[in-house]
């Protein structure tokens, strides 16, 4: 992806952020582990579309999302169960439940396909939130790259307390040996490990946006804002998202 990013930004954007967003866009356009490049871009496009969905807005305002029936306003490209996953993650993440996740699996979406959807949606959310925050248009996503998904499920992923199987730190060997780069590896870093490339992608984004994983426990690490300022922002965002973790 050679197009310049953030040239219209009112302030200079760090080169590592621009670089990681270019890599993220490239990843979105290429075949993943379970979805083609075309499908991954369709997921990203549907995530952007979800912001204008009136069903999602009604559900968000309701005491319980399950109290509101209806059809999502979708782009009409992806199957309805996939659209629901995308819209729910994007618009009302704080009220996702294990029961809902089991319904997702019952609808025919595999756990691996689901985890990759989460990875794609989150990648888009990170880039689009950044664009909104600094006051520039969202990135125009590139065209799809042809290719087939690898369809490799990591043998070491196991179902533990999370809803989805994850790879334990001690089991990250062989092809997954590079997955975790810090002595302290929290569940947030393992969460998408059923699709290891989504972990790699999120780690790449986190290193530029926040703190490199090997510096997470170094509370003296800083950028132009201090670590306490960074942690205050992180905590406030999580509170606004009703994120317990």
């Amino acid at each position: 992806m050679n197009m310049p990013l953030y040239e219209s930004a009112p302030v200079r954007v760090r080169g590592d952020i621009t670089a990681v967003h270019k890599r993220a866009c490239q990843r979105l356009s290429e075949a993943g582990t379970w979805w083609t490049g075309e499908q991954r871009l369709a997921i990203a496009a549907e995530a952007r579309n979800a912001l204008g969905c009136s069903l999602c807005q009604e559900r968000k305002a309701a005491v319980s999302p399950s109290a509101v029936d209806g059809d999502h306003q979708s782009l009409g490209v992806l199957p309805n169960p996939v659209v629901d996953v995308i819209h729910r993650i994007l618009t009302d993440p704080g009220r996702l439940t294990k029961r809902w996740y089991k319904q997702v699996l019952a609808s025919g979406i595999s756990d691996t396909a689901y985890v990759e959807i989460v990875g794609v949606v989150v990648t888009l959310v990170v880039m689009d939130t950044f664009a909104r925050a600094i006051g520039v248009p969202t990135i125009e996503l590139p065209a799809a790259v042809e290719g087939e998904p690898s369809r490799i499920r990591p043998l070491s992923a196991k179902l533990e307390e999370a809803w989805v199987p994850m790879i334990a730190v001690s089991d990250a060997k062989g092809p997954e040996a590079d997955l975790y780069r810090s002595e302290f590896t929290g569940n947030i870093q393992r969460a998408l490990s059923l699709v290891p490339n989504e972990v790699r992608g999120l780690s790449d984004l986190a290193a530029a946006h926040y703190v490199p994983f090997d510096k997470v426990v170094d509370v003296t690490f800083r950028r132009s804002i201090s670590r306490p300022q960074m942690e205050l922002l992180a905590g406030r965002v999580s509170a606004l998202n009703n994120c317990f973790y």
Partner: protein
Amino acid sequence: MLLRVSGQVSSEDFDLRTVTETNVGDGGVPYGQVLTSFAEAVLGEDDELLQRKRDEVVKNLGGEAMVDAAAVIAIFNGNDRVANATGIPLDDIMAVATIDMRTELGIDSYASAKND
């Protein structure tokens, strides 16, 4: 929570209510309220408010800081969805270390805390 830990390391006493409540001042974090107001505006829907809050960050901390703040807001807006969509439990070490804090801030009452 790493805000509390960073305060302990630097011998500063941060008011953790700044994480979950509005209008509680900076809480001991320089320009804390400017930053949290910016985060709220980014996650909100009022574009004019966002512009004002963005300008406040730039005016008080500089353009580079605004970009760094935007970056943190963005990655955690993503990370929160990863956590909520995968049902990951709190790490054992954090669960023990934050018992009192979670009670004090009401975090245990979040829907996502049930993890069911």
